[in-house]
């Protein structure tokens, strides 16, 4: 054994730390990209259903497939769906909307409450495609942040949205939302909304990593709060983790990958996790998996003695 050999770094579990290596084979790559491809399929598919319904009049058994947009919609002319955050803002203006939209908002809240609320952000929101592109380019080009900004700013923006809705009598975020501008104009016709989306893209690319989705967006903040008890979570199997850090490198919300917290809860518990699944596919140790919260029994992962002491006490 030569002294020039790099010493093998060992993880806290005593196993050697291995880097993530992108598989050479196409099927291997597809496997790494599986959640990415599913997310893009869902994001684009939903937009296509809206577009086909309003532009081409898509119908099944005489019923419009999906009319409206991501603010409020109707599936087959029967099932109402609505953005609960938009409905909350409308209610704060002092107006009680019709039962239809209240039911729709309740349905969406229940769906995301179960799925993991910020699942919206990674799997449905069209701005995610823009900001993911910016994040990918920024990694490629090696662009660094212009300044540091607390990720908690979004909760201030959330509070402002609610306060301004009360005082201006209009749904404050809905009037400036680049999310709304993007899906509305993709579905109902292009205007100048793309400039706002371009602004988000440039901000994310040149100014601040994950600037919009990870720091400012009040809708993401709303869902992060709503999603605290969400069912679908990323399970964390402590014994296999070598603390290699590959997951945090790809995560758009790296603060949720606090490994001590993850060991304590046996999962990524933070509501700020958007269930995008990036970490799962890059983990070289197969430590991370989607699972249901009530399946995740911390006792099955008895690694963090501190936690068990606390539990016993």
């Amino acid at each position, binding site marked *: 054994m030569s002294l020039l050999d790099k010493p093998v770094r060992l993880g806290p579990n005593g196993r050697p730390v291995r880097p993530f290596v992108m598989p050479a084979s196409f099927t291997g790559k597809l496997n790494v990209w599986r959640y990415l491809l599913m997310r893009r399929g869902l994001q684009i598919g939903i937009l296509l259903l809206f577009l086909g*319904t*309003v532009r081409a009049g898509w119908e099944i058994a005489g019923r*419009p497939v999906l*009319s*409206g*947009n991501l*603010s*409020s*919609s*109707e599936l087959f002319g029967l099932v*109402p769906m*609505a*953005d609960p955050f*938009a*409905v909350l803002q*409308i209610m704060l*203006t*002092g*107006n009680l*909307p*019709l039962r*239809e*939209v209240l039911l*729709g908002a309740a349905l969406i809240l229940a769906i995301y409450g179960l799925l993991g609320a910020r699942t919206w952000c990674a799997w449905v929101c069209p701005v995610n495609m823009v900001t993911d592109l910016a994040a990918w380019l920024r990694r490629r080009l090696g662009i660094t942040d212009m300044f540091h900004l607390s990720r908690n*700013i979004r909760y*201030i*923006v959330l*509070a*402002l949205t609610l*306060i*301004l809705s009360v*005082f*201006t*009598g*209009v*749904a*404050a975020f*809905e*009037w*400036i939302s680049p999310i*709304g*501008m993007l899906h*509305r*104009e993709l*579905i*109902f*016709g*292009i*205007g*100048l*909304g793309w*400039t*706002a989306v371009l602004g988000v893209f440039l901000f994310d690319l040149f100014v601040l990593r994950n600037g919009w989705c990870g720091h400012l967006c009040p809708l993401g903040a709303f869902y992060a709060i709503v999603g605290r008890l969400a069912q679908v979570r990323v399970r964390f199997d402590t014994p296999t983790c070598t603390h290699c850090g590959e997951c945090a490198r790809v995560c758009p919300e790296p603060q949720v990958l606090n490994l001590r917290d993850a060991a304590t809860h046996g999962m990524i518990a933070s509501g700020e996790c958007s269930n995008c699944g990036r970490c799962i596919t890059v983990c070289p140790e197969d430590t991370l998996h989607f699972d249901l919260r009530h399946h995740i029994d911390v006792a099955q992962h008895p690694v963090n003695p501190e936690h068990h002491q606390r539990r016993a006490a």
Partner: protein
Amino acid sequence: MNGQTKISRRNFFARLGQGAALAASGGLVWLYLLKQQARASPYAIRPPGARDEADFHARCIKCGQCVDACPYDTLALATADDAIPIGTPWFAPRDVPCYMCADIPCVAACPTGALDPALDNINDARMGLAVIDIENCLSWQGLRCEVCYRECPLQEKAITIEHHPRRVSKHAMFVPLVHSNACTGCGICEKACPTEMAAIRVLHPELVQGQIGEHYRLGWTIDTPISQDFKAGDGVTETDRPATGLDYLNEGTP
């Protein structure tokens, strides 16, 4: 140790102050944007049943289900380059007017009630008010145009033809007259008007409609039939009638 907590407490309050200042400054800019946008065009022509502009703004969720529901592609959602609050539905009657569907599908589709579901008869809709530019209206030039009158879905109610008798060296004229108590603002007249730029236009009533004021007591209106029994003061009931001068002057005297 004690010193350290003091510094961190000071830091904490400094951070709190910074956060509050950020929220306040951002909030003020945001407030300004919202107020400016809400004023962008308070006189947009809205779909039938739209509540008054402030209530409409508060309720509209900008989902476009009314646009989907409209069978004539009349409605559009305002984009960022229209001078109309962003994402809200509107229409330009000269391009495509409202054809006044009896079942009012746009109102039925509205999930928030920004379009008032209480509107059950499309003839009660008040999307705007047709206004005639008499300098450019063909009928007012003495031609027998009357296209707006012929096309009006509430012919003889919303638009009538009035006869202006011949005067020396002038044609007799048959001119259209719009009645605000029946005009829905559908804009079919504006669409049909044959002049290069429409001489009849649908505008928001607040832009054009005056108000006499309740203190005027009209003893006679244009509808009062003229008969032998006509007396000054007809149309005013006895209880409305103010006290006569003598009574008034002697009021309160024993």
